[in-house]
Protein backbone atom coordinates (compact mmCIF):
# COMPACT_ATOMS: atom_id res chain seq x y z
CA UNK A 1 0.00 0.00 0.00
CA UNK A 2 1.63 3.20 -1.15
CA UNK A 3 1.33 6.03 1.31
CA UNK A 4 0.74 8.60 -1.45
CA UNK A 5 -2.21 6.64 -2.86
CA UNK A 6 -3.85 6.09 0.54
CA UNK A 7 -3.45 9.74 1.48
CA UNK A 8 -4.90 10.84 -1.85
CA UNK A 9 -7.92 8.52 -1.62
CA UNK A 10 -8.61 9.70 1.93
CA UNK A 11 -8.33 13.37 0.92
CA UNK A 12 -10.51 12.90 -2.17
CA UNK A 13 -13.22 11.19 -0.12
CA UNK A 14 -12.95 13.93 2.51
CA UNK A 15 -13.41 16.53 -0.23
CA UNK A 16 -16.53 14.76 -1.50
CA UNK A 17 -17.97 14.52 2.01
CA UNK A 18 -17.22 18.20 2.65
CA UNK A 19 -19.22 19.19 -0.42
CA UNK A 20 -22.18 17.00 0.58
CA UNK A 21 -22.16 18.16 4.21
CA UNK A 22 -21.97 21.80 3.07
CA UNK A 23 -25.19 21.58 1.07
CA UNK A 24 -27.18 19.04 3.14
CA UNK A 25 -28.77 21.70 5.44
CA UNK A 26 -30.57 23.09 2.39
CA UNK A 27 -32.29 19.75 1.74
CA UNK A 28 -32.90 18.34 5.21
CA UNK A 29 -34.27 19.46 8.55
CA UNK A 30 -30.93 19.71 10.31
CA UNK A 31 -29.95 22.38 12.80
CA UNK A 32 -26.77 24.32 12.13
CA UNK A 33 -24.95 26.87 14.27
CA UNK A 34 -26.20 30.34 13.31
CA UNK A 35 -24.28 33.49 14.25
CA UNK A 36 -26.28 36.62 15.02
CA UNK A 37 -23.87 39.51 14.24
CA UNK A 38 -26.02 42.22 15.80
CA UNK A 39 -26.42 40.32 19.06
CA UNK A 40 -23.00 38.64 18.99
CA UNK A 41 -24.48 35.28 19.90
CA UNK A 42 -24.63 31.78 18.55
CA UNK A 43 -27.68 29.52 18.30
CA UNK A 44 -28.06 25.95 17.11
CA UNK A 45 -31.36 25.97 15.25
CA UNK A 46 -33.17 25.09 12.05
CA UNK A 47 -34.14 28.57 10.96
CA UNK A 48 -32.93 31.90 12.33
CA UNK A 49 -35.26 34.26 14.17
CA UNK A 50 -33.51 37.42 12.95
CA UNK A 51 -30.49 38.59 10.95
CA UNK A 52 -28.09 35.65 11.16
CA UNK A 53 -25.30 33.89 9.27
CA UNK A 54 -25.04 30.15 8.76
CA UNK A 55 -21.76 30.23 6.81
CA UNK A 56 -19.58 29.71 9.86
CA UNK A 57 -21.70 26.82 11.11
CA UNK A 58 -21.97 25.02 7.79
CA UNK A 59 -18.24 25.39 7.14
CA UNK A 60 -17.39 24.05 10.59
CA UNK A 61 -19.73 21.06 10.28
CA UNK A 62 -18.35 20.27 6.83
CA UNK A 63 -14.77 20.47 8.09
CA UNK A 64 -15.60 18.08 10.93
CA UNK A 65 -17.33 15.63 8.56
CA UNK A 66 -14.37 15.76 6.16
CA UNK A 67 -11.86 15.22 8.97
CA UNK A 68 -13.76 12.19 10.29
CA UNK A 69 -13.94 10.77 6.76
CA UNK A 70 -10.20 11.26 6.28
CA UNK A 71 -9.31 9.55 9.55
CA UNK A 72 -11.65 6.60 8.96
CA UNK A 73 -10.37 6.12 5.40
CA UNK A 74 -6.75 6.14 6.54
CA UNK A 75 -7.48 3.67 9.35
CA UNK A 76 -9.51 1.30 7.18
CA UNK A 77 -7.47 1.75 4.00
CA UNK A 78 -4.23 1.23 5.87
CA UNK A 79 -5.20 -2.40 6.41
CA UNK A 80 -5.58 -2.99 2.70
CA UNK A 81 -2.97 -5.51 1.55
CA UNK A 82 -3.10 -4.75 -2.17
CA UNK A 83 -2.29 -1.35 -3.66
CA UNK A 84 -4.96 0.94 -5.11
CA UNK A 85 -5.38 0.55 -8.83
CA UNK A 86 -4.74 3.72 -10.89
CA UNK A 87 -8.37 3.52 -12.02
CA UNK A 88 -9.52 3.72 -8.39
CA UNK A 89 -7.50 6.89 -7.90
CA UNK A 90 -9.10 8.34 -11.01
CA UNK A 91 -12.60 7.40 -9.91
CA UNK A 92 -12.32 8.93 -6.42
CA UNK A 93 -10.77 12.08 -7.88
CA UNK A 94 -13.58 12.31 -10.40
CA UNK A 95 -16.19 11.91 -7.67
CA UNK A 96 -14.58 14.58 -5.51
CA UNK A 97 -14.46 17.06 -8.37
CA UNK A 98 -17.92 16.17 -9.71
CA UNK A 99 -19.64 16.50 -6.34
CA UNK A 100 -17.89 19.81 -5.70
CA UNK A 101 -18.97 21.10 -9.11
CA UNK A 102 -22.54 19.88 -8.56
CA UNK A 103 -22.76 21.74 -5.25
CA UNK A 104 -21.25 24.84 -6.90
CA UNK A 105 -23.88 24.57 -9.64
CA UNK A 106 -26.64 24.25 -7.05
CA UNK A 107 -25.55 27.47 -5.35
CA UNK A 108 -25.22 29.23 -8.70
CA UNK A 109 -28.74 28.16 -9.67
CA UNK A 110 -30.38 29.13 -6.38
CA UNK A 111 -28.47 32.37 -5.85
CA UNK A 112 -29.04 33.63 -9.40
CA UNK A 113 -32.68 34.35 -8.73
CA UNK A 114 -32.62 34.88 -4.97
CA UNK A 115 -34.49 37.93 -3.67
CA UNK A 116 -33.22 38.61 -0.13
CA UNK A 117 -35.32 40.56 2.35
CA UNK A 118 -33.47 43.77 3.31
CA UNK A 119 -33.15 44.77 6.94
CA UNK A 120 -35.15 47.79 8.08
CA UNK A 121 -33.22 51.07 7.80
CA UNK A 122 -32.31 52.22 11.33
CA UNK A 123 -32.77 55.84 12.42
CA UNK A 124 -29.02 56.42 12.86
CA UNK A 125 -28.21 55.27 9.30
CA UNK A 126 -26.54 57.77 6.96
CA UNK A 127 -25.83 56.30 3.52
CA UNK A 128 -22.28 56.84 2.24
Amino acid at each position, binding site marked *: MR*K*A*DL*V*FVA*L*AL*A*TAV*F*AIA*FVVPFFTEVSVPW*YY*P*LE*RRWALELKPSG*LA*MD*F*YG*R*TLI*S*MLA*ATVTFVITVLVGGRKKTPFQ*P*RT*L*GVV*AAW*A*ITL*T*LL*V*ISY*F*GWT*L*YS*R*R*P*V*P*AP*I*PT*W*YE*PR
Partner: protein
Amino acid sequence: MPPDIAFAEVARLLVVLHALAAIVLIGSSTHHLVIAWGYLRDRHKVRLGRIYAATVAVTYIVTFVLGLLAYPTYRYHVRALFFDRYEVWASNLFDMKENLAALALPLVVAVFVVSRVMNPKEDRMLALAYFWFVALVTSVVWFDVISGILITMTKGV
Protein backbone atom coordinates in the same frame (compact mmCIF):
# COMPACT_ATOMS: atom_id res chain seq x y z
CA MET B 1 -26.62 54.13 17.70
CA PRO B 2 -24.94 51.62 15.36
CA PRO B 3 -24.86 48.07 16.71
CA ASP B 4 -21.67 46.71 18.25
CA ILE B 5 -20.57 44.22 15.61
CA ALA B 6 -17.47 42.10 16.11
CA PHE B 7 -14.33 43.57 14.50
CA ALA B 8 -16.36 46.43 12.93
CA GLU B 9 -13.80 49.05 13.97
CA VAL B 10 -11.05 47.24 12.03
CA ALA B 11 -13.23 45.93 9.20
CA ARG B 12 -11.64 48.14 6.53
CA LEU B 13 -8.14 47.12 7.61
CA LEU B 14 -9.22 43.47 7.52
CA VAL B 15 -10.56 43.85 3.99
CA VAL B 16 -7.35 45.54 2.83
CA LEU B 17 -5.29 42.72 4.33
CA HIS B 18 -7.74 40.23 2.81
CA ALA B 19 -7.10 41.82 -0.61
CA LEU B 20 -3.32 41.82 -0.16
CA ALA B 21 -3.33 38.14 0.78
CA ALA B 22 -5.55 37.45 -2.23
CA ILE B 23 -3.01 39.14 -4.51
CA VAL B 24 -0.34 36.69 -3.36
CA LEU B 25 -2.85 33.84 -3.58
CA ILE B 26 -3.93 34.50 -7.15
CA GLY B 27 -0.32 34.74 -8.30
CA SER B 28 0.84 31.61 -6.53
CA SER B 29 -2.21 29.54 -7.53
CA THR B 30 -1.82 30.52 -11.20
CA HIS B 31 1.87 29.65 -11.17
CA HIS B 32 1.01 26.41 -9.40
CA LEU B 33 -1.44 25.53 -12.17
CA VAL B 34 1.30 26.00 -14.76
CA ILE B 35 3.58 23.68 -12.77
CA ALA B 36 0.83 21.07 -12.37
CA TRP B 37 0.19 21.20 -16.13
CA GLY B 38 3.90 20.67 -16.62
CA TYR B 39 3.68 17.41 -14.64
CA LEU B 40 1.41 16.05 -17.38
CA ARG B 41 3.92 17.07 -20.04
CA ASP B 42 6.93 15.50 -18.33
CA ARG B 43 8.24 18.80 -16.99
CA HIS B 44 8.68 17.82 -13.34
CA LYS B 45 9.54 20.90 -11.33
CA VAL B 46 8.62 19.09 -8.13
CA ARG B 47 10.40 21.39 -5.67
CA LEU B 48 8.81 24.47 -7.21
CA GLY B 49 5.45 22.71 -7.25
CA ARG B 50 5.74 22.00 -3.51
CA ILE B 51 6.68 25.61 -2.80
CA TYR B 52 3.65 26.88 -4.72
CA ALA B 53 1.36 24.32 -3.07
CA ALA B 54 2.53 25.48 0.35
CA THR B 55 2.22 29.16 -0.60
CA VAL B 56 -1.31 28.59 -1.88
CA ALA B 57 -2.28 26.71 1.27
CA VAL B 58 -0.98 29.43 3.60
CA THR B 59 -2.33 32.40 1.65
CA TYR B 60 -5.67 30.69 1.05
CA ILE B 61 -6.18 30.10 4.76
CA VAL B 62 -5.00 33.62 5.66
CA THR B 63 -7.31 35.15 3.05
CA PHE B 64 -10.18 32.97 4.24
CA VAL B 65 -9.72 33.81 7.92
CA LEU B 66 -9.43 37.55 7.26
CA GLY B 67 -12.66 37.31 5.28
CA LEU B 68 -14.34 35.45 8.15
CA LEU B 69 -13.39 38.25 10.55
CA ALA B 70 -14.69 41.01 8.27
CA TYR B 71 -17.86 39.10 7.39
CA PRO B 72 -20.15 40.22 10.28
CA THR B 73 -19.60 43.88 9.40
CA TYR B 74 -20.28 43.20 5.72
CA ARG B 75 -23.35 41.12 6.56
CA TYR B 76 -25.11 44.01 8.26
CA HIS B 77 -23.66 47.32 7.06
CA VAL B 78 -23.21 46.35 3.41
CA ARG B 79 -25.54 43.48 2.62
CA ALA B 80 -28.52 43.96 4.95
CA LEU B 81 -28.70 47.75 4.75
CA PHE B 82 -27.66 48.32 1.11
CA PHE B 83 -27.13 45.36 -1.22
CA ASP B 84 -30.34 43.50 -0.30
CA ARG B 85 -32.28 46.68 -1.10
CA TYR B 86 -30.42 48.32 -4.00
CA GLU B 87 -27.90 45.86 -5.49
CA VAL B 88 -29.32 42.37 -5.12
CA TRP B 89 -26.91 41.00 -7.71
CA ALA B 90 -23.97 41.97 -5.47
CA SER B 91 -25.59 40.30 -2.47
CA ASN B 92 -26.04 37.07 -4.42
CA LEU B 93 -22.57 37.27 -5.98
CA PHE B 94 -20.99 37.61 -2.54
CA ASP B 95 -22.78 34.52 -1.27
CA MET B 96 -21.60 32.64 -4.35
CA LYS B 97 -18.04 33.84 -3.65
CA GLU B 98 -18.12 32.70 -0.02
CA ASN B 99 -19.61 29.30 -0.82
CA LEU B 100 -16.99 28.67 -3.50
CA ALA B 101 -14.24 29.70 -1.11
CA ALA B 102 -15.45 27.16 1.46
CA LEU B 103 -15.89 24.37 -1.09
CA ALA B 104 -12.33 24.81 -2.34
CA LEU B 105 -10.88 24.55 1.19
CA PRO B 106 -10.56 20.74 1.25
CA LEU B 107 -9.09 20.84 -2.26
CA VAL B 108 -6.42 23.28 -1.07
CA VAL B 109 -5.55 20.99 1.83
CA ALA B 110 -5.56 17.93 -0.45
CA VAL B 111 -3.25 19.57 -2.97
CA PHE B 112 -0.80 20.67 -0.28
CA VAL B 113 -0.61 17.23 1.33
CA VAL B 114 -0.42 15.31 -1.95
CA SER B 115 2.32 17.64 -3.21
CA ARG B 116 4.51 16.41 -0.33
CA VAL B 117 4.02 12.68 -0.97
CA MET B 118 3.55 12.45 -4.73
CA ASN B 119 6.24 11.73 -7.32
CA PRO B 120 4.69 12.99 -10.57
CA LYS B 121 7.26 11.12 -12.69
CA GLU B 122 6.00 7.77 -11.36
CA ASP B 123 2.44 8.59 -10.19
CA ARG B 124 0.85 9.44 -13.54
CA MET B 125 -2.77 9.02 -12.46
CA LEU B 126 -2.07 10.93 -9.27
CA ALA B 127 -0.45 13.73 -11.28
CA LEU B 128 -3.54 13.92 -13.50
CA ALA B 129 -5.90 14.07 -10.51
CA TYR B 130 -3.58 16.61 -8.87
CA PHE B 131 -3.76 18.81 -11.95
CA TRP B 132 -7.58 18.86 -11.91
CA PHE B 133 -7.66 19.66 -8.20
CA VAL B 134 -5.23 22.53 -8.75
CA ALA B 135 -7.25 23.72 -11.76
CA LEU B 136 -10.43 23.83 -9.69
CA VAL B 137 -8.74 25.72 -6.85
CA THR B 138 -7.25 28.23 -9.30
CA SER B 139 -10.64 28.75 -10.96
CA VAL B 140 -12.25 29.42 -7.60
CA VAL B 141 -9.49 31.86 -6.65
CA TRP B 142 -9.88 33.82 -9.90
CA PHE B 143 -13.66 33.90 -9.55
CA ASP B 144 -13.45 35.07 -5.95
CA VAL B 145 -10.88 37.77 -6.65
CA ILE B 146 -12.85 39.23 -9.56
CA SER B 147 -16.12 38.96 -7.60
CA GLY B 148 -14.51 40.62 -4.61
CA ILE B 149 -13.34 43.53 -6.73
CA LEU B 150 -16.79 43.99 -8.30
CA ILE B 151 -18.52 43.78 -4.93
CA THR B 152 -16.14 46.20 -3.20
CA MET B 153 -16.39 48.64 -6.13
CA THR B 154 -20.15 48.67 -5.56
CA LYS B 155 -19.93 49.15 -1.81
CA GLY B 156 -17.31 48.19 0.77
CA VAL B 157 -17.36 48.00 4.55
